[in-house]
């Protein structure tokens, strides 16, 4: 695809002996929000760092707007929102944006006009002269998004944009990101919140151990990989008990700790059986992206990293 914003062909990354990205292929169409999902340590951040020139690729062809990612002039066309808060604590909100504009060679007058717009966009107009240390977590994250937009980029790359935010702050960030998409920007984000991916992404890949497990639109992935309905049950004494409960039904069983997940295309009969057993607590819900994620990446605990 010639007009893909990003194209990755057989890209690999080694840290010493360890291969963290193992021959990955994907491309990203302009104007969409593309999600990179995966458990901790799957290689999401590495994939992003390679894209923004912060981490050299070991082999393969990784292109952004048709140029290799090592082309430093690409930085004029991308905005980066990193996972770690690296706002300048010594500056006010406005100064943070102004100094950042300086790195792009944006003149003072142009920067001031742009900053007014961006503060408006981030709902920070009233806080322009405040020190960043006085801002809430959600405000700081919005300021980081604003900072990434200072050069009016065509592509915005966000590494876990809503991690650590309360629901209100998270929804405000999502709303801002959606409005960027309507402005025609391309967004790439990593996340391990399935809800976030389902809310925002037009298309996503699920990454684990440096490999792409699947790719598609959130809805399509759900219907492709899991049954339509889920009953999550607690209170079953053991596996045999779970199997007996589902006897004669077409149900796929899975469990995490003491909770059993029963996947079925029609769960009415199972729900009726559960209702009859008073010692059980259960929730009946439609299958979500989280079920796809857990099915593909396994339910075992992951180490941080």
């Amino acid at each position, binding site marked *: 695809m010639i007009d893909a914003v990003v194209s990755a062909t057989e890209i690999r990354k080694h*840290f010493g002996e360890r291969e963290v990205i193992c021959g990955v292929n994907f491309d990203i169409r302009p104007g969409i929000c593309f999600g990179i999902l995966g458990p901790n340590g799957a290689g999401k951040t590495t994939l992003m760092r390679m894209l*923004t*020139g*912060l*981490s*050299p690729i070991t082999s393969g062809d990784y292109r952004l707007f048709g140029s290799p990612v*090592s*082309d*430093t*002039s690409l*930085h*004029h066309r*991308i*905005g*980066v929102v*990193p996972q*770690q*808060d*690296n*706002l*300048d*604590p*010594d*500056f006010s909100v406005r*100064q943070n944006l102004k*100094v*950042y504009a*300086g*790195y*792009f*060679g944006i003149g003072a007058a142009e920067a001031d006009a742009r900053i007014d717009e961006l503060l408006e966009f981030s709902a920070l107009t009233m806080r322009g002269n405040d020190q960043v240390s006085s801002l809430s977590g959600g405000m700081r994250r919005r300021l980081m998004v604003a*900072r*990434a937009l200072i*050069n009016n980029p065509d592509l915005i790359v966000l590494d876990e944009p809503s991690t650590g935010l309360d629901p209100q702050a998270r929804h405000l960030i999502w709303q801002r990101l959606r409005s960027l998409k309507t402005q025609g920007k391309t967004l790439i984000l990593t996340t391990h919140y399935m809800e976030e991916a389902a809310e925002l992404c037009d298309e996503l890949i699920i990454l684990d151990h440096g490999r792409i497990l699947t790719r598609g639109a959130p809805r399509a992935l759900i219907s492709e990989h899991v049954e339509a309905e889920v009953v999550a049950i607690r209170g079953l004494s053991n596996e045999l008990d779970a199997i007996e409960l589902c006897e004669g039904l077409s149900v796929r069983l899975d469990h995490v700790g003491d909770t059993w997940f029963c996947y079925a295309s029609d769960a009415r009969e199972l729900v009726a059986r559960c209702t009859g057993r008073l010692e059980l607590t259960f929730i009946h819900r439609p299958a979500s992206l989280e079920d796809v994620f857990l099915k593909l990446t396994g339910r075992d605990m992951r180490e941080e990293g």
Partner: protein
Amino acid sequence: MNPFTLLPSHILAVWRRNYLVWRKLAGVSMLGNFGDPLLYLLGLGYGLGHYIGEMNSIPYMAWLASGILCSSAMNTATFEGLYSAFTRMNQQGTWESILATPVRIQEIIAGEQIWAATKSLISGTAIFIVAGLLGGIQQWDTALLALPVIFLIGLAFAGPALAICAVSPSYDFFLYYFTLAVTPMFLFCGVFYPIDTLPDFARMLAQLLPLTHAVALVRPLLTEMPLTLPWLHAGVLALYALAGFTLAARLAARRLLR
């Protein structure tokens, strides 16, 4: 794309960021830069100077003033290249945030190095004025030439400091650098007494160190001592500045661009 591209506008943007932060706390910062050397000049220049009188036929106050001017340029640039730069590199993520823009790592290092030298110049100028008032400057016609030299001294010490910063695991590591490099130079490179006093091997060693050449260049500009081999001394300082820059840029790239 040449990884060694150095755009002046990028370097200036990095320098300017540090300048804007400094400007907010300029008063406190100046007091620090300025207080220590002033105490040395008063305490040793007057106190010890009273007993010593002259050193190599120069009043001790003038001898010491030129030495302290150099050592404070060393300290200021070293401190900035170690502690302040480490905070920006490691604690605050400032360098990483800049790397998401068109500015490249070698331009960040260059900006930091020039900024550290600027701070040497700022504190050096303050000491210069105090030294003048205390009678530490004998030759006003050449004395002003010492100021650009102080800037060069700042570059020469900021480069190696930034290289150390780029490989440091923590702030504690800097103590080694002070104990093994900065303090020995302060004591053995001619700040307090002529290096001719040292045993042969120590004198030869001192000749390899940048502070010796800094003192050899600055002292004749402020006093009646004759200036010998100025280009050699300036050349050694420039060499330290360039080698430090190259090393720091490589090490910082290795640390941040993994």
